[in-house]
């Protein structure tokens, strides 16, 4: 789950990035309009969080351009302009959600998660596969009634696999969606995290849910 955070206030973007990462999202940052445009067109993002008052190119212009060019990622507008007209204008120009500043961090994260769910046509925040339950809202995982603790990266990987249940997920897909621009792209980092996940989810339970497709990637069992 990869997110582009477009915000020119340094402290705000830093805090939001950290909060999102702790929630298991990969976050890229952009501080100006043109930078945001370049990144949005160059990489795959599930959600773009967009401030409207930006240097060089303002947020609404960016949004209009993206929608015009057929880019379908979800956009959450985050701005200090919270009047009804501004909200309506933003949503009418193609935004999926609108959050006026100041806001509660929990609400912000909930809205981001909702947008991610919407991106995967999933209404239920709790993903269930066999006896595995993943609560994306509370960020908790249980298997056969037992709580399992996962790090954000592990959780993010499991959630990604679950959103693509029954389908093969390649390493590059994982890479694109789960790692931000600052991570080192070393070839085995995905395999390492898969091993961690298997240790926590499959080792003490049957049947194993995470399967390896040699030469292709990994997949989690569909029902």
């Amino acid at each position, binding site marked *: 789950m990869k997110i582009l955070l477009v915000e*020119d206030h340094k*402290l705000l973007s830093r805090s*939001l990035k950290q909060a999102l990462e702790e929630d298991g999202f990969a976050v890229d940052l952009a501080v100006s309009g043109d930078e945001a445009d370049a990144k949005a067109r160059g990489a795959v993002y599930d959600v773009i969080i967009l401030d409207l008052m930006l240097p060089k190119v303002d947020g609404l212009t960016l949004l209009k351009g993206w929608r015009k060019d057929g880019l379908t990622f979800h956009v959450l507008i985050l701005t200090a302009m919270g009047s009804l007209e501004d909200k309506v204008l933003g949503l009418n120009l193609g935004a999926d959600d609108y959050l006026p*500043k*100041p*806001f509660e961090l929990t609400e912000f994260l909930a809205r981001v998660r909702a947008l991610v769910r919407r991106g995967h046509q999933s209404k239920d925040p709790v993903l269930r596969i066999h006896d595995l339950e993943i609560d994306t809202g509370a960020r908790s995982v249980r298997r056969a009634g037992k709580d399992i603790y996962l790090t954000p990266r592990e959780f993010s990987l499991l959630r990604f696999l679950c959103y693509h249940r029954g389908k093969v997920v390649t390493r590059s897909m994982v890479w694109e969606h789960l790692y931000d621009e600052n991570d080192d792209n070393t070839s085995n980092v995905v395999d390492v995290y898969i091993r961690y996940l298997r240790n926590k989810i499959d080792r003490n339970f049957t049947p194993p849910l995470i399967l390896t497709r040699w030469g292709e990637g990994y997949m989690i069992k569909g029902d």
Partner: protein
Amino acid sequence: MRSIRFSLTICFLALLAISLGGASLMAYRSASSNLEGRLSLQKELAQTTYKDRCRDEENRLDDALLFQAQTLARLVQFHFDWGKLKHIDLHTLGLLTSPSNSSAYAQAPVWALQSTRSFAFDLFRRATPAIRFDPAELLTRLDGQVAEFFQIDTAWNASYKSNSLEAMGMPINLATFAPDEVLHWEYGDLQLSESLKVRRVVLKASRFLFGPTLPAPPRNRNSGSNRMAEPPVPPRISNGADASFRPAIFIQCAYDVAKRDALFASFAQQRDEDILIFASEHKKDLEKFREMLAAINMLTFLAGGAICFWLVRIGLAPLNLLTVAVSHINEKDFNLDITEKQLPEELKPIASRLGQTLDLLKKAFAREKQATAEISHELRTPLSAMLATLDLALRKSRTAEEYRAMLVDCRESCTNMHKDVERLLTLARLDAGADPFRPESFDLYHLASDCVKMLSPLANSKGIELQFEGEANLEIHSDPGKLKEILVNLLHNAVQYNNPSGSVFLRLSSRPGSIIIEVEDNGIGIEASKKNRIFERFFRVDASRSHGDSTNCGLGLAIVKGYAELLGASLELTSELGQGSMFKIILPVPLKKEVLVATGA
């Protein structure tokens, strides 16, 4: 104030009423004077008619009197000429009975034979030398019954009086009454008694039938339709010899004036009635005219009112147009929806001025809106950042280092917010006039070097050279706090908007009566189109909110401008894009040094 339409209509109606009133008054006066003229003419006519009738009546009566007198005279003459009795009698009586008919002469003898007690016979028998008449007989015989009183006097003292005269007599001065005339008559009024006044005719005739004959009495006396206009002219005979031996007889016939007067009175009454009728007609005509005038005035007034209302409406239509256009203006739409072509000359200045004002207002509103957005953005963004950071800190337990980093971040955000709030408050105080000019004496050189020192770390961190030159010991009397704020702001901007390894100059110089402070940089410069706006609040050359590490909410230069105005200083900007900018402050203060020198000398 009342409506223009109402006032104009009232004015117009008043004008209309005045002119109508004037015209009506004139028309009424002329018409009434015409009518008065007509009335007086009618009155005059009535009076003339009355007089004519009276005169005619009097003439008729006079003629009748004369006729009777002549008849009487013939009878008297006949009385003495017996030999001609029959002829004369027949002739006379024929005349008396039917004077208008010439065949009377043939009938007369028949009358004479039938009447055994003929008047002529009687007269003949009795009146020698005295004259006797049977008054009743006389009256019946005499035509017209005009005369009631008869008196016959003769030169030989024989006389006759009708019974009606009773004791009264009608005196004639025989000696003086036409002594030379044989035949003569005169009319006159005579007061017989106190209560009786008569009109008489005195006829002097000859005693004999020969001599000057009496003129034939008017034959058509009673025919009415063909009355004689004039009494017969008495023939005048001026033969004194004849007169002496022809004894004269004087015959008087008279009637009571009261009868005539009664007739006259009836005429007068007729006249007065006529006059009354005329007067009432006059009054009616006047009334009619007045009514007509009133009706015309009323109709004209109503028509005028309606036309005026209509005209005023047409006249005010452009104003209505403007009103409608203006009424469509609201806080969302500031366009005056009207073209100048639609308006008359008088309203064009209003409309164009209104349009300009609305444009200004529109811009002001847009600025206001922008400013509100800016303020909310400036305050909300750091607030959200702090909130997010604190939420993040509280989300789970962290290491002391992490907490510390977050607290440091929050503190920095607070400091920035504090600066912004202070700037906003400074401007608010400036607007409210709550930031007074606090003058004191200080060394400007010292103050300027302090400012330079304050900004040196920032300049150093950006690799910018900060240079300062100026006269030392520049003692002035001004507000150091505000001057410092101005300098810090300008220097900060100069450092902030500079190219790496650029330079900034601060120069102080004094002139008599003023101090010139220049802050110059060779940085990015300002576009000519933005030069005028750079002192506006929240205006940023670059729309970005933060430039590098420092916040910029676009208030610094607005504060500089406000303070410069407060200090009475003029602020000039020369700038070229890519070449750098220079802000020049001309501070009109007397140099403390100069003052000291002047007092010392």
